[in-house]
């Protein structure tokens, strides 16, 4: 073990001003931290917007916002959470930091391209924020930018679309980088059967990024062209078809759901074996199901359009395909549960978040089946049931995995531990607040309360009140969690190289890792979950 005060890659490396040392660094760990900080900041601003939305919905009638402001609020909330937090979150931050470490490489295949990706992401984010204060005012279309409204509204949609295009470009470049890295830079002995499951999930994700994102690119370009020049390609009055927009949009955006959730599943697959002290049950099945989800998930976009006017045959096919994706997802859940079975489980904070993930994601997945079968979807389409469902998947799933990753890997990145008790309390508050917030949304949605309205009928009041209170509870929990992590990062006890006794490669170097990761490529001699071998390459 190296000196405890060795600050590794965190140390300023040369005489440049400190800021430049970071924003022009091509070290994957520094770029990953840049992502982590920016993604975290956008998450917090997104939460603030979410709280405002909930505040407006605390009582019927206008409360704090007009209808127009409310439209801008939920659009911005959606855009920030989807494009700035949840899609780049885990791959950008933890993928960048851990991918080379976990495969025993010095860096990603194209370090400068990696930096470019971050810059593009920041440029896009900056443009998205500028769109709020310039032009015709904040976009009010919702994050889906459906035509014909998005091609007609006088608000600043074009700039927001350009921002989405640029962020998409950044996402493609990250995908290209990761696939190449995984193919080319594995250490001797790290064959595909020894790849950590997090890497498998990043691999599947990267393919989806490469193959699906361009479709979103062309779609937003077309809407921009529509707004600026106007060919009527989606305008029914001029022979175009708005439904085609929806097809193109969801051809990307459904697979994008897997860009969000696959890396999350990867994180969980890392944590569960370590904290049950048992090798993963069904390594191959988990790895293969990542790829299967990526493949099958690309074919199901039509389930967003059951009520848009599709042929009955198409509805039947899309419904069936949607159910098929549930299979590989369920395979993962069963494998995690089987790993837990008779393990010696220690409920430390990363594990608590991982268990909450499994629970909340399962609720999200099961309610997804209600939306996936056309007959029930007709009833709950565009109600708050949908809002509840996707928060269970995206926030309860990916969001919680992100928190799990924070608690699992921050000690590696900063070499310091946070306070375990406070982390556990924060976890409990977040968990309770989360369910208070979103479960009532599903109930009120089943009773018919539509989404994206700033007002509702008086008899929905009770559940909405509970939900808004839940949002405050959740916010308090989040605040506590972030303060605790921040203090741990700064002043926590030293963590040592391998505080959780994990067997994957990233725990071999010192914490924080030195700039060059490994002094020479490690010879890998065992699988990622052979826990007796912990600490050896």
């Amino acid at each position: 073990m190296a000196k405890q005060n060795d600050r590794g890659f965190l140390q300023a490396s040369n005489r440049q001003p400190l800021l430049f040392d970071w924003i022009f660094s091509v070290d994957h760990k520094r770029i990953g931290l840049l992502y982590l900080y920016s993604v975290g900041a956008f998450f917090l601003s997104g939460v603030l917007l979410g709280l405002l939305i909930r505040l407006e919905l605390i009582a019927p009638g206008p409360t704090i916002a007009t209808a127009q402001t409310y439209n801008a609020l939920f659009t911005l909330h959606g855009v920030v959470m989807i494009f700035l937090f949840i899609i780049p979150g885990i791959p950008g931050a933890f993928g960048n930091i851990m991918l080379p470490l976990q495969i025993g490489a010095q860096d990603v295949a194209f370090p400068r391209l990696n930096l470019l990706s971050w810059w593009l992401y920041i440029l896009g984010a900056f443009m998205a924020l500028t769109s709020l204060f310039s032009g015709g005012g904040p976009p009010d279309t919702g994050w889906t930018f459906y035509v014909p409204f998005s091609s007609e509204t006088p608000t600043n949609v074009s700039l927001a679309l350009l921002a989405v295009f640029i962020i998409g470009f950044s996402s493609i470049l990250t995908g290209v980088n990761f696939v190449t890295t995984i193919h080319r830079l594995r250490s001797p002995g790290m064959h595909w059967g020894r790849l950590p499951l997090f890497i498998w999930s990043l691999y599947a994700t990267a393919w989806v990024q490469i193959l699906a994102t361009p479709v979103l690119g062309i779609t937003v370009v077309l809407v921009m062209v529509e707004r600026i020049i106007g060919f009527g390609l989606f305008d029914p009055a001029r022979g175009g078809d708005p439904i085609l927009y929806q097809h193109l949009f969801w051809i990307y955006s459904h697979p994008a759901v897997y860009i969000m959730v696959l890396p999350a599943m990867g994180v969980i697959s890392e944590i569960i074996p370590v904290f049950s002290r048992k090798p993963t049950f069904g390594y191959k099945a988990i790895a293969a199901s990542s790829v299967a989800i990526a493949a099958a998930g690309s074919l199901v976009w039509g389930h967003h359009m059951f009520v848009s006017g599709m042929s009955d045959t198409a509805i039947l096919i899309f419904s069936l395909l949607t159910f098929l994706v549930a299979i590989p997802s369920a395979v993962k859940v069963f494998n995690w549960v089987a790993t837990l079975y008779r393990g010696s489980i220690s409920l430390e904070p990363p594990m608590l978040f991982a268990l909450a993930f499994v629970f909340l994601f399962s609720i999200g997945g099961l309610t997804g089946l209600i939306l996936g079968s056309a007959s029930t979807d007709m009833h709950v389409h565009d109600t708050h049931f949908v809002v509840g469902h996707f928060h269970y998947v995206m926030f309860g799933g990916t969001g919680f995995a992100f928190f799990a990753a924070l608690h699992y890997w921050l000690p590696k990145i900063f070499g310091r531990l946070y306070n375990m008790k406070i982390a556990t309390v924060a976890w409990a508050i977040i968990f309770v607040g989360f369910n208070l917030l979103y479960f009532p949304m599903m109930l009120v949605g089943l009773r018919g309360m539509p989404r994206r309205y700033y007002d509702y009928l008086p008899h929905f009041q009770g559940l909405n009140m509970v939900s808004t209170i839940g949002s405050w509870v959740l916010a308090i929990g989040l605040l506590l969690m972030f303060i605790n992590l921040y203090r741990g990062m700064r002043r926590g006890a030293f963590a040592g190289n391998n505080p959780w006794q994990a067997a994957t490669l990233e725990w071999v170097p010192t914490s924080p890792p030195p700039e060059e990761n490994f002094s020479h490529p490690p010879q890998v001699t065992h699988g990622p979950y052979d826990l007796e071998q912990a600490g050896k390459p």
Partner: protein
Amino acid sequence: MTMQPDALGARIGMWLFLFSELLLFGGLFLLYAVYLARYPADFAAGGQQLDALLGTGNTLLLITSSLTVALALSALQQGRRQLCQILLCATIFASLLFLTIKGVEWQAKFAHGIFPGGTELESLPVGQQIFFGLYFVTTGLHGLHVLVGAALLLWTLGLTHRGQVTAENSVMLENGALYWHLVDLIWIFIFPLYYLLL
């Protein structure tokens, strides 16, 4: 441990990126397919108004430039730097000629009032409006790629001149040439779909 330049890795990366470029145009071809099925007669009428001669000329130009860039690469690999540079210049020249011809073609359409917002275009049947809308977007996006490709080759030309791209280290030119072949390939789809089949 220092990073070795990894030529195969760079090639893999380029191929992956080209996949995503192909899919970008894939969206447009998808729209083409759907609208062709919906408005076959209008698409035929629109296609007949395009200048097949100019289109053919441009096709020949691109194919030739694909050849010159391939030759430039093998010249470089044989160590004949000067020849390589001449061939690269020829390729870039061809791309500029392509864009000029494209401009002439667009200009001719504009002169007939066929441009976004033009009264002539608005008076056409909706199917033809869609046809020309797609035509302008697709060829415009393709033209943009020609421009990017030419810029990439120009940059590579500079690197060859400075001796940073050489017979031993030719992956930059290989990737530039790959990109150029992709631009060519996409045109090979655009050309029959818009100029010939209809």
